[in-house]
């Protein structure tokens, strides 16, 4: 004989998710899987293809080792140029970003038209990949570090202005209101009301963009825009995989070290 408690357990549904949700999840799953199959078909990225290329891959990785240690002497100057490019681009874009982020923040710039125009402009910059910008600037200025720097400036301006205007929108507006009420002009309110509130984030984001720029300038050389990417392109074309491996090792260590240092600095200031 069953008691009441056992009865209740019997009628309980088998699953904790509702059939409606289940149906929806299944449908989404099927769509995602079907799209995946279609895109693998379109891009010829099937498993057999991958397996077929496996011996070639192993052969190539064999060529990567041992890395040519003597090649370091050629890598360092290119690396230094990469650094210079990232430093200059980051500096200029942090300066340029100030008017842009003020214009793009909804609470600082209450003029709807200029606000929307700035946001639209920044959104467009952000959608263009850095290397395409570099391609265009190389077309204009010729090969060298200069077009790379210009491309990085545009690229980091888009990121920085977006991050900073978002931060600006979260600041405490009450000190600003108080300052305006006691007769401060807009420059004074920005300097004494806004700047102290966002300075730590400003420095932190600038370092973050510097990190991104180092990483980005590594590849800019592929399209002739200076830096370490130029060597990478060259050595690959000459099938000097031992040199390529050396380059990869250097890039790896530089990126890791930069990331470590900048995360330490960011921890210290925010």
């Amino acid at each position: 004989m069953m008691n009441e408690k056992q009865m209740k357990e019997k009628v309980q549904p088998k699953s904790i998710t509702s059939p409606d949700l289940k149906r929806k999840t299944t449908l989404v799953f099927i769509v995602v899987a079907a799209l995946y199959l279609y895109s693998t078909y379109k891009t010829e990225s099937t498993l057999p293809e991958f397996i077929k290329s496996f011996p070639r891959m192993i052969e190539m990785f064999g060529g990567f080792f041992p890395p040519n240690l003597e090649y370091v002497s050629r890598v360092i100057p290119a690396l230094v140029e990469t650094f210079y490019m990232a430093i200059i681009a980051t500096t200029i874009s942090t300066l340029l970003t100030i008017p842009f982020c003020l214009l793009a923040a909804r609470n600082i710039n209450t003029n709807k038209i200029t606000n929307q125009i700035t946001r639209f402009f920044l959104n467009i910059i952000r959608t263009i990949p850095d290397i395409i910008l570099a391609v265009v600037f190389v077309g204009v200025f010729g090969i060298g570090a200069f077009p790379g720097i210009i491309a990085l400036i545009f690229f980091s301006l888009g990121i920085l202005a977006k991050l900073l205007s978002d931060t600006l929108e979260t600041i405490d507006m009450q000190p600003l209101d108080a300052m305006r009420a006691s007769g401060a002009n807009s420059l004074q309110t920005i300097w004494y009301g806004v700047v102290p509130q966002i300075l730590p984030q400003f420095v932190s984001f600038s370092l973050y963009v510097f990190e991104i720029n180092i990483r980005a300038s590594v590849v800019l050389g592929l399209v002739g825009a200076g830096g370490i990417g130029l060597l990478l392109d060259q050595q690959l074309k000459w099938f000097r995989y031992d040199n390529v491996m050396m380059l990869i090792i250097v890039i790896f260590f530089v990126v890791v070290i930069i990331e470590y240092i900048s995360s330490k600095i960011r921890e210290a200031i925010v």
Partner: protein
Amino acid sequence: MRYELPPKKKISTSKKLKYTTIAIAIIAIFFVTFTQININWERIFSDRTINNFSRVIPQLFSPDWSTFGKVMEKMVETVFIAYAGALMASIIAVPMAFLAARNMFRFRIISSLGKWLLDAVRAFPELVFAIIFVATVGPGPFAGVLAIAINSTGMLGKLYSEVIESIDMKVVEAMEANGANKTQVFFYGILPQVIPEFLSYAIYRFEVDVRASSVLGIVGAGGIGFLITIAVANRNWDEVGMILLVIIIVVTIIDYISSFIRKRLV
């Protein structure tokens, strides 16, 4: 009426010294950078540049609509590369993230190793992977998919592992105390907490990957970048304008859709 600023806070000598050293170091770095960088200013500010400028820029802003069909076809391929790569990565990243999360295994070595591996993968731009894969599997979109997949695994694994580290472990403990086994804890205690954010990150990554895969073609790994290289080589700047326009519009649409879905997820 007199205007007076409040007295300034006193700064200790050691702090002053610290700030001065930092300031000197920064100034020194800038000085070296701006004096040492090798830029041929004469060539940049020459008539040729001005010529280029007046030829390239107007053409960029008057896109060549006759190439629209061709460009669109390659853009679709770009999106497919991003989709296949991002989906592959979002699945591979799950076990990687559990390995790298500090609260999942008792041994710190495992999570450190996992984190180190993900960091190592993330250190390289996807173009570097693309170059390597083009050399191994040959030029074509497949190399692009592999490059995107590996690069996204590095990023997603890191983001996922942070999600796992932030979950409510009390639920897990409660289940363990009630005698649930490892599988049950995983499916009923951990997964429900992390899935919405995993999905959100995966969709976000797809957004990033569409942008990334639009340049893969520059090194021969498929997608719209291939058209850019050819158009630039032939100095068809109006075609480059068309390509840029298509990239901007498609990326914006995908960003919009993905942020819409993500808002509903989390």
